């Protein structure tokens, strides 16, 4: 609740604050402070009542699961502001507005992780999406950015339309917008309900860029300014996924068996397309775009299994994926050359950053001792706990993880085993290096002690 109210409020503060500020880095400073405040407010809610108690008339409910994920996304957001603030300032002149838009997105995230009513889902997803369309096109003198923005907007609104239609059909089937009605009625299967669910499924699959609804992702991620790609690929994607999980948490019992088959096909396609296409990329940025599709495939396991393992897996995955991807994009945004060759000899240019990047890449590949391993582990364990019927899916997922090693390790190989032409160090402050190492240390710490974060789900 705090996140929704204060996210919107601080967005407004940020917007008007921008009018008073003469220099760009003042905006970054203000945004970082406000972000930290938001993080504190959300943590407060883990232990106490929200600051404003609002009667939501069953439209929203605060759960520990939602709060913990908010917490992870806010922490990721804070790290993102700290690491990439300088790059956000370079995108254009309206720095304060960019930050304000991101605060609005966080308000949307708050709704998406706590809705119990389909109308609220729609609101949350839209509040997240519309600022994103603007951010994608923020670099308005760059044709690629504008093209990406337009493409994202058209495709996004189309999927929103599908979602609305689905919600309407569900209303026709159950006579209610409430998620709880799905399960309580145990519902006689009606065409309206099933059709509606499928349409909503398609729309949500679009938002988390699951195949075969992923086509917008590489172009939009590639075209958008790199700093905003980072935001889009991590925080927004995780939020959409949590909303997805919440949606089917209630409705699972209705279409049980068939539901798993649909999900299994989507997951298999997403994993295969994401991983195999990523292998052929020459640009690290595009590779990360496809890798984000591939990782979404793994996260969807939570939906496939719909058990506690899956929920815990989402928590770990949100942390693993956000931390590693934000770190990678933060460095990428400062590079001159986005191809794999641009990383040649990087370990000699920036030994500390290279170590951190290596840990992030190992985490994304799911190598033990990094939190990436446990996130993948929990996902596969979730699928295994549903019984051995979908063994092929687990095998496919693990083989895809092995494929992903190929493209993640290409960056490591370039950094450590090849010699590059550029020898000057990156134009970054020393604090940037230390912060990156700190994030890498968190990745390792959670890789040894995943319980530390999971314990907040239960107490």
């Amino acid at each position: 609740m705090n996140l929704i109210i204060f996210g919107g409020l601080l967005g407004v503060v940020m917007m008007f604050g921008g009018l008073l500020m003469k220099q760009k880095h003042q905006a970054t400073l203000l945004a970082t402070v406000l972000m930290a405040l938001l993080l504190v407010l959300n943590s407060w809610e883990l232990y106490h009542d929200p600051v404003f108690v609002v009667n939501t008339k069953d439209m929203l409910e605060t759960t520990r699961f939602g709060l913990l994920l908010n917490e992870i996304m806010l922490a990721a957001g804070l790290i993102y502001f700290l690491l990439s603030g300088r790059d956000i300032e370079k995108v254009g002149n309206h720095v304060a507005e960019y930050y304000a838009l991101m605060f609005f997105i966080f308000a949307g995230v708050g709704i998406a992780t706590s809705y119990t009513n389909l109308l609220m889902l729609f609101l949350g997803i839209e509040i997240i999406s519309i600022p994103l369309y603007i951010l994608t096109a923020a670099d308005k003198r760059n044709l690629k950015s504008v093209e990406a923005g337009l493409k994202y907007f058209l495709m996004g609104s189309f999927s929103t339309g599908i979602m609305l239609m689905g919600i309407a059909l569900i209303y026709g089937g159950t006579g209610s917008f409430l998620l709880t009605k799905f399960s309580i009625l145990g519902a006689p299967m009606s065409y309206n309900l099933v059709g509606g669910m499928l349409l909503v499924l398609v729309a949500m699959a679009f938002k988390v860029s699951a195949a075969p609804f992923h086509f917008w992702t590489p172009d939009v991620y590639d075209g958008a300014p790199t700093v905003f790609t980072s935001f889009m690929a991590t925080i927004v994607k995780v939020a959409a996924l949590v909303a997805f999980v919440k949606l089917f948490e209630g409705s699972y019992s209705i279409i049980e068996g068939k539901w798993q088959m649909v999900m299994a096909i989507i997951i298999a396609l997403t994993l295969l397309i994401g991983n195999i296409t990523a292998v052929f990329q020459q640009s690290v940025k595009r590779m990360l775009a496809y890798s984000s599709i591939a990782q979404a495939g793994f996260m969807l396991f939570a939906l496939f299994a719909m058990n506690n393992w899956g929920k815990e897996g989402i928590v770990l995955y949100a942390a693993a994926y956000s931390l590693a991807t934000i770190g990678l994009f933060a460095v990428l945004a400062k590079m001159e050359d986005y191809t794999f060759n641009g990383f040649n000899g990087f370990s000699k240019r920036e030994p500390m950053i290279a170590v951190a990047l290596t840990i992030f890449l190992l985490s994304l590949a799911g190598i033990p001792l990094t939190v990436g391993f446990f996130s993948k582990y929990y996902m596969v364990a979730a699928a295994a706990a549903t019984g051995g019927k979908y063994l092929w899916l687990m095998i496919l997922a693990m083989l895809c993880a092995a494929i992903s090693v190929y493209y993640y390790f290409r960056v490591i190989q370039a950094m450590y085993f090849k010699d590059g032409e550029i020898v000057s160090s990156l134009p970054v402050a020393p604090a940037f290096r230390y912060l990156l190492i700190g994030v890498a240390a968190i990745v390792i710490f959670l890789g040894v002690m995943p319980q530390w974060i999971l314990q907040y789900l239960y107490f």
Partner: protein
Amino acid sequence: MILSSFIFIPLLVGLLLFFVQQQQLVKALSLAASVAVLAVVLYAVYLPAGHASLSYSTSWLGSINSNFALLLDGPAKITTLLTAVSFVLIFLATWNNNYANSSSYYALMLLSMSGLMGVFLSADALLFYFFWELALIPVYFLCSIWGGEKRIAVTFKFFIYTFIGSVLMLIGIIYLYNKTADQSFAWNSFKAVVLTAKEQAYFFWFFFIAFAIKMPVFPFHTWQPDAYETSPTGTTMVLSGVMVKMGLFAVIRWLLPVFPDMSDKMANIIIIFSIIGMLYASLIAMKQDNIKRLIAYSSIAHIGLMSAGLFAGNTVAYNGVLVQMFNHGINIIGLWIVVDIIEQQTGIRKMSELGGLAQQAPRLTIMLVIVALANIALPLTNGFIGEFMMFTGLYQYNPWYAVVAGISIIFAAVYTLGMIQKVFYGELNTAVKVVDLKAMQWLALALIVAMIFVAGVYPKPLLQLGEAAGQVIATTVTK
């Protein structure tokens, strides 16, 4: 606590080394760490059976019932002892080598040692998987940074190969975890798990392929000669001396007791593949001109015999395997030390370009001949006892297998003696200058030769370490 120190001494010293700059200090520290581990291992190995220090468990991931559980049983004694001895020998033998950026090199070596110790000790499936991967990562970097030409492609192949094996094993671990009675990763729960015949048939292979790639058993061996050839020799010694034992050890601890019926049923086919691998590798070894590749193929042949011995299903063969695991590690490290000395001093790996080194380096020659004879398993050397026991066991399983596998002994003599002849005798290639052994190398080789003779003449202490375990394995499989 003693057992944890096997893992944490190299781990902590290794992490420390990243920040040490003086080269001599780095070498001294890594040698000191490995000697310290060896001392602790020796102390632990000779504790009486059932001593409280031989197992250790503390909670790690409470909610999914995974513990930091370590266990030092017979096979683990052999392999941890081998690891500790090997690293001391390796650090001694490569004392005079200078590596660019040596602090990272030695740090990664110690990290791989830590991972190996973890694999050999862990009595918890998830922990085992953790260390299984952790042993691999440092070696990947070692080979790729300090290796020879084509290193990036070769080590990458090696990494992907083993990683695919590992992920299959991970699925197996997760599946078995769900089938255990108390939902736990503990070794004892895994042993007690009841699976249907069909499940066994699937998951046996999931585990076995991961282990077979690591050993490597024919037809999963294709990464191995390239990796041995291109790695820096210190790392090759780790790979061939110790890391291949991960596969064998994993079969002993995680495959035979967990899938006893299936191990019995599949023994025939695995033994056949192992024997094919032995003969095939021996034939290729005879045709090699590159010394490193020759030793790599000879290693495949030896490992083939050990994997056949594992599935022969009788006590003699098991004890033979356990003894041979140790002795093969020592012998092959000895061979690599000699090859490394030759390569460092002449820059040549091809046997056809060498010759007559005996005149220049008599001491080196004597050492090599002894190690080579142990490699062919001549009586009175340490190689004999293990091979003899394995062939006896194989003969009990099926006489014909022993006969066919026995051919590889002849082949081994052919290529090993051929190597000695081409490199050390014959016409002196005058362009090549070899200085005889340096102090540290001499010490390392002397230790190896001493172990070869002691274990060859009086193998009882070594046999005793594994003996009880050999019986236990045999009874679980043939129950």
